[in-house]
């Protein structure tokens, strides 16, 4: 090789490497881009938009305190349209844009698309709201972390909470959509009612099934009215649940049942029903700033303040906290890892414990399932705006109610010790 050629080569290499270095430095000093994929339109929007607001507040809080790794957080937001295929397309697009940190899956239908994709994209994916069992069982992979309780934990805890607060109610019944989720949630709820009833003397009648998208519940309501049950679990969610209450109220269902637990619509139902909210309606909840233990938690107070400042609304939905907590889990993982690289963040999150408005949270290392306190709220009508109110909160430590970790193995309740 000629000396001149060698010098040219060295010069080119040096300039190329300097160029790459400067690009690298520019990228590191820019904002830390985090992908967000929630259902912001379609039938999942009432849930997805609440998650979105919480996630935005989390980013705003971290940015206000100086950012993460010395960089400001930039959320790159996409709408998964409550559609599994769309959630996959969105994740691929975000990964293609160089984003390896993703928060999504505000519902199980979209999480089932996102979860298997995470290793291929080499991304850390926070499954924010999907409680479906497959996420931490047969679909588990090390790239995903779930920041809500799974169905078994959630609905077992719910059944336990309701029978412990209503031991006088001896006969229970469920109405649920005829699908995996509906059948499972009614089963977990009913089993817990029987297991934790004082003296184990509670009876759980056969579940009444309906279609998940049903709009007419008169037949099922008639069956409920004709039953001898005094306690009811409603596994029907979304707009269908509100239609159920509209149709049930007029035939006297409110007078027949002494307590009703519902699947997790929470304030969505309260806001829609207003003064006509069932007076002893219990719901899976995440947050209520006016009641303990949130009232004395500074993180809860700050979240409330930030929510009111950013929206002007003084009545934040509970799911806002779930959205904020999901984002904070990822941010704290990055902070602990001192890196935004996928492997480093995963390793950090597996050992992570962090404070939230609902108390401390951590991840179970084996299946990346978040362990936290589960909250249940009692809702009723009110004469003042917004015409429903949260009367009290009950709580269950989910570490007592969670199934053993079996990542990669399909969950079957028959495998659990009875």
């Amino acid at each position: 090789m000629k000396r001149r050629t060698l010098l040219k080569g060295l010069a080119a290499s040096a300039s190329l490497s300097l160029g790459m270095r400067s690009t690298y430095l520019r990228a590191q000093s820019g904002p830390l881009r985090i992908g967000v994929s929630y259902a912001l339109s379609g039938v999942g929007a009432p849930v997805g938009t609440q998650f979105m607001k919480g996630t935005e507040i989390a980013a705003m809080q971290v940015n206000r305190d100086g950012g993460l790794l010395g960089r400001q957080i930039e959320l790159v937001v996409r709408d998964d349209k409550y559609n599994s295929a769309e959630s996959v397309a969105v994740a691929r697009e975000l990964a293609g844009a160089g984003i390896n940190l993703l928060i999504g899956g505000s519902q199980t239908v979209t999480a089932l698309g996102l979860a298997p994709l995470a290793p291929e994209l080499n991304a850390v994916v926070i499954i924010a709201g999907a409680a479906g069992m497959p996420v931490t069982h047969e679909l588990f992979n090390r790239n995903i972390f779930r920041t809500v309780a799974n169905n078994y934990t959630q609905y077992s805890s719910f059944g336990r909470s309701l029978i412990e607060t209503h031991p006088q109610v001896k006969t229970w019944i469920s109405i649920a959509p005829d699908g995996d989720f509906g059948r499972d949630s009614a089963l977990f709820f009913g089993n817990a009612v029987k297991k934790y009833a004082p003296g184990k003397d509670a009876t759980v009648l056969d579940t009444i099934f309906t279609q998940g998208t049903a709009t007419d519940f008169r037949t099922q309501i008639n069956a409920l009215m004709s039953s001898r049950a005094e306690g009811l679990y409603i596994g029907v969610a979304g707009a269908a649940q509100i239609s159920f209450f509209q149709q049930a109220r007029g035939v006297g269902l409110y007078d027949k049942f002494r307590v009703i637990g519902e699947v997790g619509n929470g304030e969505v139902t309260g806001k829609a029903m207003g003064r006509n909210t069932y007076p002893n309606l219990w719901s899976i909840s995440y947050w209520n700033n006016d009641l303990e233990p949130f009232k004395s938690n500074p993180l809860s107070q700050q979240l409330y303040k930030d929510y009111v400042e950013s929206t002007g609304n003084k009545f934040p939905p509970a799911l806002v906290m779930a959205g904020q907590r999901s984002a904070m889990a990822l941010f704290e993982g990055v902070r602990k890892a001192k890196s935004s690289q996928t492997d480093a963040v995963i390793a950090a999150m597996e050992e992570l414990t962090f404070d939230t408005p609902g108390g401390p949270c951590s991840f179970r290392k084996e299946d990346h399932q978040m362990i936290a306190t589960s909250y249940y709220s009692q809702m009723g009508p009110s004469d003042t705006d917004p015409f429903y109110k949260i009367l009290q909160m009950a709580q269950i430590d989910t570490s007592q109610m969670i199934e053993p970790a079996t990542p990669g193995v399909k969950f079957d309740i028959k495998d659990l010790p009875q």
Partner: protein
Amino acid sequence: MINQFVFVLFNGLASGMAFFLVAAGLTWVFGILKILNLAHGAFFMLGAYIAYTIGGASPSSLWTFIGVALLAAIAIGIMGLVTDKFVLGRLRNVDYHYVLIATFGLMLFCEGVAKAIWGSDYYSVMPPPEVDTAVKIGSSYISLYTILVIVIGLAAFAVLELIMNRMWAGKIMRAVANDPWMAGTIGINVPMVLMLSVVASFALAGFAGGILVPNQTLSVHVGSSFILYAFLAVVIGGLGSIRGTFVACILLGLVESANATFLPEYGGIAVYVLLAVFLIARPQGLFPPQGAL
């Protein structure tokens, strides 16, 4: 068992009348203009929102409730007038594909407008106090509101039948539907009749929205729960036939109710079986109109 049959009968009739209230406007406009209005459910939804906005979540009396539904009908009828002037009127002489695309676009536009005005939250409206209770027949609980829906559905059918078969207005409309060119040559103002038909069809959608909103969660998707059955009824009844649509709605309601009571594990399947049977055995529908309603 008798109790179950009584319940199926009441429930089916109530569903059928609810379907008919929505389907009546759909079949009317098809019968005269030969337009399949895909936006019909969207105007039903707007009628429901308007009734909610005027009457609130708890109507103070039965007459207020019906009055509010009539106001919703007027408001949606006016929207029909505007729609006819700017959309449907321009599509009178084009291929029906363009009409389908236009009404589909109109549906998306209405949903967007509703979202912009009322947001994506859910709302609920309760029945008026006079019918916000139930009667017990045997072991079945029958809501008085569903009986009200049955009565209003029957009344709507009677009025439409009266207009179409016993009044000059109906005869003129039938003449226009049968042969618009000939109707024009004998001095009938055909464009005016067509425009009024669109207004009446839209007003029926708005009225149905106001009457049926206590039964369903109010959201931009409220129309979808009824519009599918309305389309099925129009097909089974005979495209454009009000009488056929009425009978088809009752059939659909009864079949759906029986399905939910006796075969709950196969929920929703019976209406599709019914549709398949009709498409094979009587594709022209129950009462195929012979150029008229």
